[in-house]
């Protein structure tokens, strides 16, 4: 016969009381574990919600980036480089420059190593009277994109127009009944219609594009251009001054203006969208943090109350147990059991109660916490299963807490039992 056997026999004898004690510990630990599980589910939910929002934002931003690239492509260019002496008022009024600069500038710029300016397109543009058709058109000479010498060649944004061919705007081909492949005469020179452009609703609708060399020849401006268009350059969000400064260093007698505000507006819209998405994530983060603080506050109030209530209840059960076993304590001491062995008898029982209640409470708390997390939509559906919420360390902690709680709650009654004078008990009996 050992003390452990004595404890086990006593537990079996007073099953109901023992079960009540186990239930009490389980309730305390369950409340603790449930709260911790709920908070953990909340944290996992927060992580997943924010990750989903981040991914969604990144996807939207990628789409915007793509849209931006396409938009920039369609808009044609971002900045235009003009001779310094060009009056901008005239340029805006006419839609093209009246001053000229050497075509060689574009090569110099392409070889300069500037990274802010890409897709250089030299043009010579002038409003002319089409003598053969008696109508005013905008003649645009273009030679296509000049490749950067310092970077690998990219897909050109604007295709060149071959010598002897012409691309005609909407109103021109509509008004003259032109179609692709037809031959026309422009300023005494024969051209083949290479492309008929769809309607754009801009001056492009009355434009005719021919090769730059032929345009220079027809307009008597050999070796000259009046603008360099820089397409898809890195000029968004206040970078224009940098572009100006860099170009100014390479081509001192030029000026740079932002030609098409739509591209910039799109870039800004994209930036605003990015900022807005980030703000949404930030708001969600703060919202989740507020929810967590509320949950923490409830747990911080509820858990201690339940712990204390359970401890008091366990203490009461232990006190009742000591009272019931007074005669037993007397005889145990009379046969030679030391007071600390009597203490051990009561604390061992509390320990078993604590461990069983702790295990039951930890499991119940985990299941209840998981269920509550789902019911209260703390975490997105199926975002946090029991497997995700189970933390071995926390469970071990709960078990230790339960054992400590049970032993502490039983300590005073157990001490009372151990300190009882056997003579007093035996005399009274």
């Amino acid at each position, binding site marked *: 016969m050992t003390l452990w056997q004595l404890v086990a026999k006593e537990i*079996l004898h007073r099953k109901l009381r023992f079960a009540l004690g186990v239930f009490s510990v389980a309730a305390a630990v369950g409340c603790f574990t449930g709260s911790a599980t709920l908070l953990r589910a909340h944290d996992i939910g927060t992580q997943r919600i924010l990750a989903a929002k981040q991914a969604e934002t990144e996807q939207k931003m990628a789409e915007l980036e793509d849209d931006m690239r396409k938009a920039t492509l369609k808009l044609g260019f971002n900045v235009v480089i003009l001779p310094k002496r060009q009056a901008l008022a005239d340029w805006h009024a006419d839609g093209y420059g009246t001053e000229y600069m050497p075509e060689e500038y574009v090569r110099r710029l392409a070889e300069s190593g500037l990274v802010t300016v890409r897709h250089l397109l030299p043009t010579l543009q002038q409003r002319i009277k089409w003598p053969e058709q008696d109508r005013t058109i905008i003649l645009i000479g273009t030679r296509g994109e000049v490749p950067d010498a310092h970077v690998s060649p990219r897909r050109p944004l604007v295709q060149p127009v071959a010598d002897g061919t012409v691309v005609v705007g909407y109103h021109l081909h509509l008004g003259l009944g032109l179609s692709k492949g037809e031959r026309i005469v422009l300023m005494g020179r024969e051209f083949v219609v290479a492309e008929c452009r769809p309607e754009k609703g801009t001056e492009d609708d009355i434009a005719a594009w021919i090769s730059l060399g032929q345009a220079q020849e027809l307009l008597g401006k050999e070796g000259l251009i009046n603008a360099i268009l820089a397409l898809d350059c890195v000029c968004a969000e206040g970078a224009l001054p940098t572009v100006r400064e860099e170009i100014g260093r390479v081509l001192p007698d030029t000026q740079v203006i932002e030609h098409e505000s739509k591209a910039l507006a799109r870039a800004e819209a994209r930036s605003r969208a990015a900022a807005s998405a980030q703000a949404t994530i930030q708001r969600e983060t703060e919202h989740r943090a507020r929810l967590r603080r509320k949950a923490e506050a409830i747990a911080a109030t509820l858990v201690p109350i339940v712990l204390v209530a359970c401890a008091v209840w366990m203490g009461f059960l232990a006190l009742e147990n000591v009272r019931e076993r007074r005669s*037993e304590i007397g005889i145990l001491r009379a046969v*030679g059991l030391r007071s600390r062995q009597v203490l051990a008898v009561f604390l061992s029982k509390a320990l078993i109660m604590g461990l069983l209640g702790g295990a039951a409470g930890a499991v119940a708390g985990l299941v209840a916490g998981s269920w509550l997390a789902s019911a209260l939509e703390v975490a997105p559906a199926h975002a946090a299963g029991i497997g995700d919420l189970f933390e071995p360390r926390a469970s071990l902690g709960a078990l230790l807490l339960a054992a400590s709680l049970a032993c502490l709650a039983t300590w005073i009654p157990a001490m009372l039992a151990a300190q009882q004078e*056997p*003579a007093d008990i*035996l005399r009274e009996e």
Partner: protein
Amino acid sequence: MTLPLLEARALSKQFASPKGGVQALADVTLSVDAGEFVAVQGPSGSGKTTLLLAAGALLKPDTGRLTLDGVEPYALNPDGRARLRAEKIGFVFQEYHLVPYLTALENVLVASLPKPAADARPAALELIEGLGLKDRAEHVPAALSTGERQRVALARALLNSPRILLADEPTGNLDRENMVIVLGRLAEFAAGDGAVLLVTHDDGVAGRAERTVHLRAGRLVDP
């Protein structure tokens, strides 16, 4: 010359009560030799149980000196006294003090709790058999008669082969048949070089002892 197994010299013990101090023992001097069966008689409240508890190293007297098998229990610390009780003293009480959730056999084995030993179980079974409880070994106290309970309590007291048995009204609740069994076993124990100090009201029971001392108001008196 052999020393007495139990020697009490001028033991006094007073209990506090709302009406003032109650002198439970007053200058009690008594010695019990090995092999002796001594009965203590006296009216209720005369201090018989107090004397028994003091002799059993359970109740320290206010004054006086007690020696048990050459050891002064009250000179020892509580652990030492507990060890002394486990090794040298057996108790039998009128109310048995059996543990309700243990079987008769387990109740006997309770005496081995302070120092569990492998041979305790066979020894307990032998004692139970010797006291005619072989068929009742696996019964809990509630299923035993009063006589059987007292015999279980006696077996428990005997398990550790004590030097002295202290019995407080052990036959108070027993019928004649059980009384004979219990007293017979006590006498047998005393005859085996032990000693028995038995408290009783009953002259017939006291008559089984070799010597009877009388207590009145805490003092040993002539009959």
